[in-house]
């Protein structure tokens, strides 16, 4: 079953800007789905339409089989949104923010209090329940928004750049949290500028650019289309010039660090032979993890993605 189906979705703003030019997209139930794109590509418009914050110009949105126009209540009840920016009343307590949201979804008081407690405990915020929300740290505010989005137990959770501007410790904690939520059966749609985040969390991906979907596939297939692996080599001795290594693209990061692009069909043995022959000693080697970044740049710059070997 599709958690989300978009059909020929368009959005033209009053100033004439066409943010979406007919998008078709399906997200399977239970998926952890990445929706990526550069700034101004149409991601926020798409997320806004799905979560009823933006009126579409044309097209349809269906959430777990419920059309957003015809079965508004059922469709909306399936969705939880964690927006990009803090948008709760910063003078309210943490508990009031989550509890009131349960009320907006028609939840009776007793159940709303139970769900509020469950969600705040899950987000490790129960001790802060009576705190005024503006006094919370940035990471805590993000977690309040996740608790608020989950209080009505949505089947589809939309996370719009949930880790933007938070430190690496909080980001890692939030990744763990998102994985747990997804493992419990909640479909997650994630938009992010951290491609490493999408690569490590998401199973399927759509890339949107200039109002159109330019790629929609599973993460593994997309990454398999790369025929180059990038390695970072730490050297024992500094180099004056970048070495010539036949069959490899070499970039000198610093005197003792090289970035080497290794074609999959060539492999690493030949690389080390040449390095040994030139008396270059390698102390350590690591694979660059942001492989998605190159693909992303290729796609939005309309370059052909490197063909498989």
């Amino acid at each position, binding site marked *: 079953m599709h958690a989300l189906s978009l059909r020929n979705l368009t959005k033209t703003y009053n100033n004439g800007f066409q943010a979406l030019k007919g998008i078709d997209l399906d997200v399977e139930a239970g998926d952890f789905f990445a929706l990526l794109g550069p700034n101004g590509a149409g991601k926020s418009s798409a997320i806004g339409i799905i979560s*009823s914050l*933006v009126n579409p110009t044309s097209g349809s949105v269906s959430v777990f089989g419920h059309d957003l126009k015809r079965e508004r209540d059922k469709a909306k*009840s399936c969705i939880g949104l964690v927006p990009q*920016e803090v948008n709760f009343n910063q003078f309210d307590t943490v508990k009031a923010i989550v509890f009131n949201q349960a009320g*907006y*979804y*028609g939840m*009776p008081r007793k159940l709303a209090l139970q769900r509020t407690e469950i969600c705040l405990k899950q987000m490790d915020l129960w001790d802060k329940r009576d705190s005024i929300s503006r006094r919370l740290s940035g990471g805590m505010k993000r977690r309040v928004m996740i608790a608020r989005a989950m209080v009505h137990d949505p089947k589809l959770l939309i996370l719009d750049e949930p880790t933007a501007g938070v430190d690496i410790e909080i980001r890692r904690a939030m990744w763990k949290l998102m994985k747990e939520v997804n493992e419990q059966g909640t479909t997650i749609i994630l938009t992010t500028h951290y491609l490493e985040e999408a690569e490590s969390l998401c199973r399927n991906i759509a890339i949107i650019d200039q109002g159109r979907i330019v790629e929609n596939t599973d993460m593994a297939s997309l990454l398999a289309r790369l025929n180059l692996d990038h390695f970072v080599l730490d050297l024992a001795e500094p180099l004056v010039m970048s070495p010539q290594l036949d069959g490899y693209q070499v970039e000198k990061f610093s005197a003792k660090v090289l970035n080497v692009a290794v074609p999959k069909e060539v492999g690493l043995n030949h690389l080390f032979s040449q390095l040994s022959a030139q008396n270059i000693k390698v102390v350590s080697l690591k694979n660059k993890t942001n492989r998605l970044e190159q693909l992303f740049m290729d796609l939005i710059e309309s370059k052909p993605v490197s063909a498989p070997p």
Partner: protein
Amino acid sequence: MNHFIAFKTIVRKEIYRFLRIWPQTLLPPAITTALYFLIFGKLMGERIGAVNGASYMDYIVPGIILMSVISHAYSNVVSSFYSTKFQRNIEELLVAPVPNGVILAGYICGGVARGLLVGAVVALISQIFTDIAVNNAMIALTSALLTATVFALAGFINATLAESFDDISLIPNFVLTPLSYLGGVFYSVDMLPAIWQKISLGNPILYMINSFRYGLIGITDVDVPVAFAMMGGFIVLLTLVSLILLHKGIGIKN
């Protein structure tokens, strides 16, 4: 989907908001109106004498009560809903399955509650200066309720269309306050020259104040049924405009 729970949630949140900041919402009208009663009613009123058979103090009490109801019903909704827009926590309501009518009803009830509560506070203050025997409590309460609803709706429309904090102070300062003062709070329209009497009849607040005054002291410059019909008409019209704005997402959605 139980929309009544959503409605109750909005109303409770709104009432809690203005009670939490009572030094800003309930205390100032108590002090200001006490000064009105003291200066205009007591000190000057004794020199002015009776108006349409009532002491000047008794004559101005209904107008001052209703003026407080008008300004607080309006300002509660305009400031609360505009802040909700400004802080973007309107998105909490838009994401959830809350019908537009429920959003509107919730905010209007919050505004009416504050308007009536402030009206009650001012009425209590007035008891220090005079002792009014209520002529018709039902007419007085209905007038206050309808007036508060009209201005809560007007505040909602103002908040929806406002793009800055300046926009939410323009109408109260340049429209509501002059119309209230010219609506017969401190005088009877009979005291005006003929041309100004006719012009005053175009001021809707005149009808509201006079129907409320009739309810409290049994004196009015207008027909009470006409005043009720006019307020009912305004409520229908402003509700329709508010719902259209919400439906189209004007000022709220992109």
